[in-house]
């Protein structure tokens, strides 16, 4: 299984061609409406004072999403950013802060971050959630953050993510634990999403 990374950590990661030239930095991640996979990235220029770029990076142009850089084949893979984000949602715009519920209606918490798989797949694997007090009991001052796997059948309704009941049976406290949890569960996790 490829390395898992938090989508927020992708911001400012350089976009580098296979020829070794840095083209831009990642500004934000764009994923599809079902929050199932990454569809692309919005970009910022490389200079200190350069603002957001008009071009975006679609996932088809990505060679590999790595720990230190997003590798692309060449500069021609970039497309108009407005066309890319028209029907999709950037993470910051919709997913962050969304409520997470189970099908039975139990409130899990709110999304702090989205965990994606590196490499060539671009899957959304889970969410980092600020757990609600009912879901993870504990002292009020110390709110727990847990990693919740995405599960197979997630539905996005407005600003809420509805997970199947068994998806939240196991949660992890940190990213290494989450990697073990997601990698160790047999069945649907082994293959990629359809």
């Amino acid at each position, binding site marked *: 299984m490829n390395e898992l990374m938090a989508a927020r950590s992708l911001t400012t990661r350089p976009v*580098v061609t296979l*020829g*070794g*030239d840095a083209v831009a930095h990642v500004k934000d991640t764009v994923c599809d409406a079902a929050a199932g996979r990454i569809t692309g990235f919005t970009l910022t220029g490389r200079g200190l004072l350069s603002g957001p770029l008009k071009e975006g990076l679609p996932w088809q142009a990505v060679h590999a999403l790595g720990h230190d850089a997003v590798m692309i084949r060449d500069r021609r893979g970039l497309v108009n950013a407005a066309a890319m984000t028209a029907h999709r949602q950037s993470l910051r715009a919709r997913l962050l802060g969304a409520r997470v519920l189970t099908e039975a209606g139990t409130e899990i918490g709110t999304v702090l971050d989205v965990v994606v798989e590196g490499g060539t797949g671009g899957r959304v694997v889970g969410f980092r959630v600020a757990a609600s007090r009912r879901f993870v009991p504990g002292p009020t001052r110390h709110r727990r953050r847990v990693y919740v796997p995405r599960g197979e059948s997630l539905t996005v309704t407005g600003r809420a993510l509805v997970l199947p009941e068994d998806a939240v049976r196991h949660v992890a406290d940190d990213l290494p634990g989450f990697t073990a949890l997601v990698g160790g569960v047999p069945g649907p996790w082994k293959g990629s999403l359809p």
Partner: protein
Amino acid sequence: MLFTEVRGLPVLVPDGGGPLGTVTSLTVDALSGSVSHVRFRAGRFGREKEVSWDTVETVGPGAVRLRSATAPEPAPSSHHELLGRRVLVDTGTEHGTVLDVAFDTRTARLLALFTTRGELPAGRLLGLGDYALVVREG
């Protein structure tokens, strides 16, 4: 021979006279995996010039000797220095920086790259740009 051994050698022409300058660096063509130009500088404040590898007769020992009738051109600024450059595997993970490069002085082909994270065969080179040297995953 190593890049660090070539750096600092005098550049000589066969018809005598003083050296044209001392070698500052070697330009590498990442696609073919070979040295394409030799860059040198006359004195500390001279402009950097370059000659194509085709005009080089021999490299070492002690000097870089050119064939006769070579006119060095002012070096273009698009040169990417290999030594000290960041190494990126094409999966997007860093692999240290380049410490030294071994190359064949007759064919100009690169033989191996020595990085802070170990040795890499020159066949894995993919590209050399302004940000990093990209190598294929082993």
